[in-house]
C-alpha cells in the first residue's frame, strides 16, 4: 500500500553530469551579471534575454530536446546540474525558463512535425519565449472549470476570454493556453484543448500586475476575438486535460523547488562568517544543511526516475511540498535571527534580501499547484482517495 515510500532510495548523479557542472560554473563565472544579492534572489523572476541567448549559444536552452531541433539531447541529470548551478548563482533565468522546462517538452511530445520544426529551434535559440495560460480569475486550483473559449471558424479558431497570473506575458512571443473547445465549464475536464497563441496577434491585450515587492512579473491577458490559424491547436482537440497533467509533472519534478531562497541563505552565512557571529547560529546553519542534503537526495532520486522513463507525478508532488516548506523556512528563520538584537547593525544587502524573500516566499507554495492540492495528490497516491 505504501509502494510510494519504496521509491525514495538513494540515487546519484552520473560522472558526466558532475563533469558538466564545471562547464556551467565556467560559463557563469564569465556571464553572470554583476548584481547585488537582493537582485540575484529574484533568479526565477530575473529576466535577461541577453543572458538566455548566451546560454542558448552553448546549447543549454532546451538542452533535453533532440539535436535535430537545436537541443543538446542531454538527459535530466545534466539539466539538474544546470538548474542547480543557475539558481545557486542567482542567474536571471526567467526568459527561457518556461519554454525550457515545459513548453519545449510539450511541443516535442504532442506537436505535429511542422510545429516541432517551427517552434523548437526558436526555443533552443532563445528567440521564442513562452508563457503558460492555465489560470483564470475563476479557475485557480480548479483548472477544470476553465472558461476561455476557442470556437471553430472556416480558417481556424476564434479565441475569447481572459487568463491571469501569466508569468512574463508582456515579454513572451507565445502562450500555451488551456481553453474550452466544446461544452461548458460544468463539463469540467471534457472539452478542453491547448493552443499556441502568438501574442502579437490583434485582439490580445496584456495588462501587467504589480506584486507586493514592487515587481511586475505576472499579468492579465485578454483575448477579444483573436483569430487563430488551424495549426495553433497543439495535440488533440479535447485532449487538453491529459496534456496539462503531463506538463505539470515536468513543472514540479525539477530541483527548482529547493533553491528559491538559497541566495539568501548563502549570503546570511557569508555575513555571519565575516562578522564572526557564526558560532551562535551553528545549529541553525547545520539544520539547514541537514535538510538541504536530504531534499537534494530526494530530488536526485525523482530525476533518476525521469531518466529511466517513469512519470513520477506523485513523487514530484511530495518533493515539491516538502521542498517549498524548506524554502519558506529560510527567510522566516533569518528574519528572526537578524532582529534578535535590535541594536545590532545589519548588513544592508542582507536586510534587503531577507525582506524581499520574506515577501514573496508565500508564492513558493502557490505557483505550480498549492500545498493543499499537492497533499491531495499524495493522499491519492497513497490510496486514500
Amino acid at each position, binding site marked *: *500500500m*505504501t509502494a*510510494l*515510500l519504496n521509491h*525514495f*532510495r*538513494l540515487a*546519484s548523479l552520473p560522472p558526466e553530469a558532475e563533469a558538466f557542472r564545471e562547464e556551467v560554473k565556467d560559463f557563469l563565472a564569465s556571464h553572470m551579471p554583476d548584481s547585488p544579492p537582493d537582485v540575484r534572489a529574484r533568479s526565477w523572476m530575473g529576466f535577461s534575454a541577453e543572458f538566455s541567448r548566451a546560454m542558448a549559444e552553448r546549447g543549454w536552452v532546451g538542452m533535453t530536446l533532440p539535436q535535430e531541433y537545436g537541443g543538446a539531447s542531454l538527459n535530466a541529470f545534466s539539466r539538474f546540474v544546470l538548474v*542547480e548551478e543557475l539558481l*545557486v548563482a542567482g542567474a536571471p533565468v526567467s526568459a527561457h525558463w518556461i519554454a525550457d522546462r515545459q513548453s519545449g517538452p510539450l511541443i516535442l511530445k504532442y506537436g505535429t512535425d511542422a510545429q516541432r520544426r517551427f517552434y523548437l529551434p526558436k526555443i533552443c535559440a532563445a528567440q521564442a519565449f513562452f508563457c503558460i495560460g492555465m489560470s483564470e480569475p475563476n479557475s485557480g486550483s480548479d483548472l477544470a472549470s476553465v472558461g476561455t473559449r476557442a470556437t471553430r471558424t472556416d480558417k481556424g479558431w476564434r479565441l475569447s476570454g481572459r487568463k491571469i497570473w501569466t508569468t512574463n506575458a508582456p515579454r513572451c512571443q507565445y502562450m500555451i493556453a488551456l481553453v474550452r473547445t466544446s461544452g461548458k465549464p460544468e463539463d469540467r475536464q471534457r472539452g478542453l484543448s491547448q493552443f499556441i497563441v502568438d501574442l502579437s496577434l490583434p485582439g490580445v491585450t496584456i495588462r501587467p500586475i504589480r506584486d507586493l515587492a514592487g515587481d511586475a512579473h505576472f499579468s492579465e491577458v485578454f483575448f477579444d476575438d483573436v483569430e487563430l490559424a488551424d495549426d495553433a491547436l497543439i495535440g488533440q482537440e479535447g485532449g487538453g486535460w491529459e496534456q496539462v497533467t503531463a506538463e505539470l509533472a515536468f513543472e514540479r519534478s525539477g530541483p527548482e523547488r529547493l*533553491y528559491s531562497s*538559497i541566495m539568501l*541563505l*548563502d549570503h546570511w*552565512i*557569508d555575513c555571519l*562568517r565575516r562578522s564572526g557571529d*557564526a*558560532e551562535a*547560529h*551553528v*545549529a*541553525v*546553519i*547545520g*539544520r*539547514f*544543511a*541537514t*535538510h*538541504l*542534503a*536530504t*531534499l*537534494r*537526495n*530526494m530530488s536526485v*532520486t525523482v530525476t533518476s526516475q525521469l531518466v529511466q522513463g517513469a512519470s513520477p507525478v506523485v513523487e514530484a508532488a*511530495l518533493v515539491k*511540498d*516538502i521542498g517549498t516548506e524548506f524554502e519558506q523556512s529560510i527567510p522566516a528563520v533569518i528574519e528572526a535571527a537578524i532582529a534578535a538584537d535590535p541594536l545590532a547593525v545589519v548588513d544592508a544587502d542582507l536586510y534587503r534580501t531577507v525582506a524581499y524573500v520574506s515577501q514573496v516566499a508565500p508564492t513558493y507554495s502557490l505557483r505550480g499547484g498549492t500545498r*493543499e492540492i*499537492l*497533499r*491531495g495528490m*499524495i*493522499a491519492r497516491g*497513497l*490510496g*486514500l*482517495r
Partner: protein
Amino acid sequence: MFAEAIEEILKDQCTPAVVRAIEAGGSPAVLWNAISDAGFLELLASENDGGAALSLAELFPVLIALGGYAIPVPLAQSVAARALLADRMTIPEGMLTFAPGLRRLNDGRLVCPVVPFGTIADHVLAQDEGRLLLLPGASATRTATGVHGSMVATMSWQIDADSIHTDLAAGTLSAFGAALHAALLAGAMRRVFDMTLQYANDRSQFGKSIGKFQAIQHQISVMAEHVAASLIAAEAAFPAGVPTPPPLASAIAKARTSEAAVLVASISHAVHGAIGVTEEYDLQLLTRRLHEWRIAHGSEAHWNQIVGRSLLQSGQDRIVDFVRSASV
C-alpha cells in the same frame, strides 16, 4: 535478501508479545539465540571468519527491518561491534552495545550515561578519544532510567583495569551509533506510517473511513514526506565500500531522522485517536522507540551543531557544495 531472511525470524520470534515481555524484564535469550543461531550476528564479518561480508549498503535494509519490529535486543549494535572488533581483539560472547559517551570521574571511575540496552548488555564498547574500550557488563553498576519499558541504563565501573583497549579513529563510534539509530528510526517510522495508513482506511466515523477526510489525508501526506526524507537521509549514512559510516552523512542522518521522529509520532497518534496510546495496541511499542532513539547518541540539537560547524570549517561559500560533498 538478508532483510527478508531476518524478517522471517522477526515475524516468528519478535512478536509484539515478545517485545512486551522483554521490556517487562523477561529474558531475551530465546530471541537472541534464534538470531545468533541463524548467523545474523556475523553479517558484516568477512567470509573467512564465517560471516556474510555485507557492505554497509547491504546492511541498511536489515536495519530498517529491525527498526520496524521495535527490536528489543542490541542486535544492530552487536553486528556493528563485531565488525569493529574483528582484527583488533577477541570478540566476546553475548550482547554487545555502544556507549554514546564516556566520562572519567575524579575518583577514577568510568561512567557511560544512558547506554541503549544498558540493562541487559553483556559488554559495552566505548570510545575515549582515539581509543576503543571494551567494558564488561558483569562488573558494571547499572542504573536504569526508570522510564516505563525502557532498557536504557547509565553504567559505571570502579576502575577501567579490566577493560581492554585498542586504537580507533576519534569519532568513529559515535558516527556508527548515530547512523545505526538513524536507520532504526527510519525503519520504525516506516512501520508507524504503514500502521497509520491502514488505520485511516479501517476506522469509520460519520459514516465513512476517516482517511476520506481531507484534514486526515493532509496529515498523512505530510507524514509520508518526512518518512521519505528520513529513509533517504539514513540510507546516505550506509554507502558501499567503506567499513564504517562516514561522519558527516551520519550526522545528517541522525539529525534529520531525530527531527522527523517527533512529527511522525505525533501525527500517528493524532490519526489513531485514543486507541493508539493504549498498552494493548502495538503502535506505542514503536512510538516509544521513536522518542528513545531520537535521544540515543544525541538528538538533532547535537548533530545539527556538528553539521553546522563542519560547514563553517569546510571553507565552502555555497551550502550546496557542502551538502554535495556529504553525499557521494
